[in-house]
């Protein structure tokens, strides 16, 4: 199976957001891979290996994983990390994150899918910075491919021509069969030890929870793996936006609370001011 995986870099979600006027100040920001995309890379690797075959030497690769990112040249660092985890090659599309919207990203991915012809476009369910949760759905629509979003489990069908994708919905777990090629976006449970069954790795194989570590061997091997650089213009993507950001404001600071002297006063305030009683 050939899998195209998206990997976006986002500001470290654990870092405090700084503002400069009415825009976010990105100076000094620590950029990290979008967590759900990292999960997608891990899922892609699990889908394309036999983890039971390699013995102490690790898993045997069986398939191809191509990681793609749209962003500045520095994204190479995050792509290199994915290559160190085990992805086969990477594509860096030069682009300014501020000049993109979900629709344009989807169009770009469609173009890339036409060139790369993967069996599966695998993505995180959303990016932690914009939280759009739109690109996978849009891309599937443009491609006329089946889609399964918020994947918690993936099981390859016996003939290898479809995937059974488990989705945690309000009423329980829903299994959707998508024929390949397809678009799948992953949720956080996809990195559970037994979330992925690819028909090659032993069905009882349990992975360590979470995305795998890049071993030193992997990091050294990644130096030799190719990162192909291209640009939106080269791919023929017209820079038109459907969504424009008109304003960004910091959440208002929390107001100080008040101390009440008695239960009566509290009840009165809840009744008269908060109007919850």
């Amino acid at each position, binding site marked *: 199976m050939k899998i195209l995986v998206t990997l976006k870099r986002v500001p470290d979600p*654990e870092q405090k957001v700084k503002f400069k006027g009415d825009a976010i100040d990105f100076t000094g920001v*620590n950029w990290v891979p979008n967590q759900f995309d990292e999960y997608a890379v891990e899922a892609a690797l699990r889908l394309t290996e036999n983890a039971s075959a390699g013995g*102490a030497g690790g898993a045997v690769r069986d398939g191809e994983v191509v990681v793609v990112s749209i962003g500045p040249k520095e994204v*190479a*660092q995050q792509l*290199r*990390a994915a290559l*160190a985890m085990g992805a086969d090659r990477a594509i860096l599309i030069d682009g300014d994150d501020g000049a993109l919207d979900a629709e344009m990203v989807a169009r770009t991915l469609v173009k890339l899918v036409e060139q790369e012809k993967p069996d599966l476009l695998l993505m995180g369910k959303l990016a932690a910075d914009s939280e759009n949760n739109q690109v996978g759905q849009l891309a599937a629509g443009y491609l006329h491919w089946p889609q399964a979003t918020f994947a918690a489990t993936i099981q390859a069908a016996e003939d290898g021509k479809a995937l059974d994708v488990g989705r945690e919905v309000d009423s329980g777990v829903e299994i959707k069969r998508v024929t390949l090629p397809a678009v799948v976006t992953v949720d956080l449970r996809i990195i559970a030890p037994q979330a992925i069954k690819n028909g090659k790795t032993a069905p009882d194989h349990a992975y360590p929870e*979470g995305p795998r*570590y*890049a*071993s*030193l*061997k992997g*990091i*050294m091997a990644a*130096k030799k793996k190719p990162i192909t650089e291209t640009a939106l213009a080269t791919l023929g993507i017209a820079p038109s936006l459907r969504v424009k950001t008109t304003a960004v404001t910091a959440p208002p600071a929390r107001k100080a609370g008040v101390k009440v002297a008695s239960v009566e006063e509290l009840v009165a305030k809840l009744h008269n001011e908060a109007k919850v009683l």
Partner: protein
Amino acid sequence: MSFRGVDYYATDELLTDEERLIRDTFRRFVDDELMPIVAGHFRAGTFPRELPARLGELGALGASLQGYGCAGLGPVAYGLIMQELERCDSGFRSFASVQGSLVMYPIHSYGTEEQKQRWLPAMAAGRAIGCFGLTEPDFGSNPSGMRTTATRTNTGWVLNGEKRWITSGGLADVAVVWARTSEGEIRGFLVERGTKGFATHDIEGKFSLRASVTSELIFEDCHLPESAILPGSGGLKSPLSCLNQARYGISWGAVGAAMACYEEALSYTKERVQFRRPIAGYQLVQAKLVGMLEDITNSQLLAWRLGRLKEAGRARPQQVSLAKRHNVRVALEAARTARDLLGANGVTDEYQAGRHMCNLESVFTYEGTDHIHTLILGQDITGINAFE
């Protein structure tokens, strides 16, 4: 929340992408797999037996060596691994230092092809464990006085003597043992566990490095084949060259321990409220926190610059001494300060500072005591030997 590092001077920018990636891998490994188990092992006085294989899988053992299953990393990347391991525990870093710098390095530098093939891939994978026998009960800072002898026989050598304070001694499948031959020369020997006349005893009752094994090695008419000698070794400079590698790693490791203590003290003092405000709001506390940060920043820059010099083949042993001396001394001070700022909580293993403080007492003393490094530097700058 996972560890974010202490980086007041944007030293991250001094690292290559690859070095950062390696550091981040080990940072996550330490947070996920070692932090949850370290206090338990320290309290019980046990070494985590699964650690060698895990470090081997990640490629951390003998990581700076070329070939034989080793990663062939540059000195800065190697140093960053030591930093992250010691951010958890000096005992864990000690294990890795001994395995890589004190056992794999001499086999790699002074061993025969057969010895290398036999030991290096297994040690890199963590399947075999090594120890380094130089120090003796009566000869620590002055190893040239060693009493362990290697006498020639028809078929090889006979070792007699005693080594003490040997990290991983009781675990080791092979010991690199330094002994004096009848000609008076110091040579290195590989002694395998189970060899007749070779016994180990673990040292009990340690206050320090409790999550690591420290032992004595006893040699009583221990017969070794000719193939046990490291043919390339000769003179005290051979073991000292190993120590030079290990001391370099320690200068990075100490940064890790100091960062752990600083982070803990900073977050504790920001939370701990006394007299209606966090204690971090008091001048005496701030002065201590700032002192720690200043020392860590100095240490980072020293270790980084030493690494780049080493990369260029220009690091002198005296420069290694300066980094080891400085970084370990300030890390020990940082641990003591952190313990102080944590008040009574600092004396329990619910927090790290007390453990680091106890560990760093050993690090202060081993691999060249603080005094010895001072004399090495004193001799270097004055030209006058003050050892004797």
